[in-house]
């Protein structure tokens, strides 16, 4: 498929109000995960927890480019995507705390946040496992002739697993409306991309599937929003899937208490300069927004997160009867 055919009507530029709203969500995600980190350190969160700090631009830009009826699938590093899609903060916290009111009744946990009510179809913990599932989600819309798209987030390291290959190929053959969004944060767990992957630009893998592939700046939320809007319009029109590689950076370790010692000196600092929240704040200031206004937003977002957490912590554990429920319908 020749690249020239891909141009679709550009969406209008985002208004400052819209971008302010994005910033709000990005800050919520940031504070939400600060709390996750803290709670994990305090032993209040079980298992593992994978923060997306530094990557908020990708999930917010992408999720805001689609509507409530569109669907999102993401990974264990999915707090951001699920919140960006509209899941309530308190029930997200509650899930991570294993509470009865959690999004998944406490039965899923941090790696499996799901909120069907807002189109957050699932967070998946087996690398690559959800890419084939995204096909079916998109297929249902195609089958029932609804012009919906499915966003499917995954990491750079996931592009080396078999499911990635099968999913992109069949999505292309069936012309399914899936936007595959690779959050290239340079690492798979502790391994730098170059040690596991013999090419640099992952978007190039789209060629193997006859679908468009683009690499974009994942920390530029408006750029992400515009790209995903474009491709979503294209997919709604029946032109099939695309692969978007969003360059970004995982500011924290892979999970739990990983101190991320494997990073070359200066790498984190350079990326902190390009923190997506910071970039957006600067931009909004350039657009005329007052610093005080931005500070207020930070305070608001933080308060919302703290309130949500307080509610969540007050909720009870699941009842023992829940143990054997939800296996069969």
């Amino acid at each position, binding site marked *: 498929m020749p690249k020239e055919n891909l141009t679709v009507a550009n969406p209008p530029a985002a208004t400052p109000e819209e971008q302010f709203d994005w910033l709000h969500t990005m800050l919520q995600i940031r504070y939400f995960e600060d709390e996750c980190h803290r709670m994990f350190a305090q032993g209040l969160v079980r298992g593992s927890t994978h923060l997306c700090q530094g990557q908020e631009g990708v999930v917010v830009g992408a999720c805001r480019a689609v509507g409530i009826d569109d669907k999102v699938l993401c990974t264990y590093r999915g707090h951001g995507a699920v919140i960006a899609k509209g899941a309530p903060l308190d029930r997200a916290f509650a899930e991570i705390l294993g509470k009865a009111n959690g999004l998944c009744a406490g039965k899923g946990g941090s790696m499996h946040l799901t*909120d069907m009510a807002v189109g957050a179809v699932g967070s998946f913990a087996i690398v690559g496992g959800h890419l084939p599932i995204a096909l079916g989600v998109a*297929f249902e819309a195609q089958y029932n002739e609804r012009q919906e798209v499915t966003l499917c987030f995954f990491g750079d390291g996931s592009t080396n697993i078999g499911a990635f290959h099968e999913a992109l190929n*069949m999505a292309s053959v069936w012309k399914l409306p899936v936007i595959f969004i690779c959050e290239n944060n340079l690492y798979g767990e502790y391994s730098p991309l170059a040690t596991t992957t013999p090419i640099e630009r992952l978007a190039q893998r789209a060629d193997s599937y006859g679908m468009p592939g683009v690499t974009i700046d994942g920390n530029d939320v408006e750029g992400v929003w515009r790209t995903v809007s474009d491709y979503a319009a294209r997919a709604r029109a029946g032109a099939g899937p695309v692969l978007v590689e969003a360059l970004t950076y995982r500011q924290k370790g892979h999970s739990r208490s990983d101190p991320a010692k494997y990073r070359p000196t200066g790498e984190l600092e350079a990326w902190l300069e390009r923190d997506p929240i910071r970039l957006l704040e600067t931009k909004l200031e350039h657009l005329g927004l007052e610093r005080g206004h931005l500070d207020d937003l930070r305070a608001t977002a933080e308060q919302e997160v703290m309130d949500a957490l307080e509610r969540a912590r007050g909720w009870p554990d699941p009842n023992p009867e829940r143990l054997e429920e939800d296996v069969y319908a």
Partner: protein
Amino acid sequence: MSTVTFREALIRAMGDALEEDERVFLFGEDVAAAGGSFKLTEGLLERFGPKRVRDTPISEQAIIGTAIGAAVMGLRPLAEIMFADFAAVCFDGIANEIPKYRYMTGGQVSMPLTIRMCNGAGGGFGAQHSQSVENWFLNVPGLKLVVPATPADAYGLLRSAIRDPDPVLFFEHKSLFNTKGELPDAPAPIPLGLAETVRHGEHVTVVATQMMRHHAMRAADELAVAGIEAEVIDPRTLVPLDYATIAASVDRTGRLVVVQECPNSGSWGATLVARLVGERLEHLDAPPALVGAPDTPIPYSGALEELWIPSVERIVEQVKRTVSY
């Protein structure tokens, strides 16, 4: 009522299901244009068109993933994984996603999908195309496992599987495709979880599925000549299992022989025996016996494959031993 083959019964069940419910779609490798590599989906593309009957690349993970996503969104995917042994290449979807999705989301979704696959030995297909794959999934709660032995069961159970709100793995034994049986003109679905007592008898309960049910029936005929009346029960579905019917029979006969086309370790037969002796040891007049395959892969050579599969003779001998215990 008419006489149909197992294959015809399957095709009819799929056709009726596609007819009945717009949400059903059928897909897999070569199921559409070619009508299936075992001709089990012949004519369905022609009847229902390419929207509902679809070919896929050789990508079992993508097939299973598509089934999962579509089921979660409310469709009724009917997927084919040609040889059941290939469940290995998409095992993650089947074992880690399908049976856990509803649970892990606290009941937010259901998973009304059916996966058809050809299992079983006896045709000389070798070690990687002959296994009784249903046993791989026994320790994975959340799946329903269907193992029909006759055309009527194939029809009735497949209809129920497709209608079921939960995920069903539906196993079609390759050696049965050309066997024949009666099918009513307007056949009804057969509920999952209902065993069939195929033969009544008072001396011993023999439990077997698929090919082994037919071997067991032949053994029962031979045993009858020797004055031993075997009750033969075909569970038809392993999950849910009609434990009550089997238990009631064993309570009466006091003796149990399970016949299965697989090694005994980690088998459904071992599971059944463990449960039965745990709950009703006092009803047993003899040790419950498993007639299974040896702990080896399935050999290609006819001379060896025949030894691997439990034979009518081995069943007869074991029943005699059990009855005379």
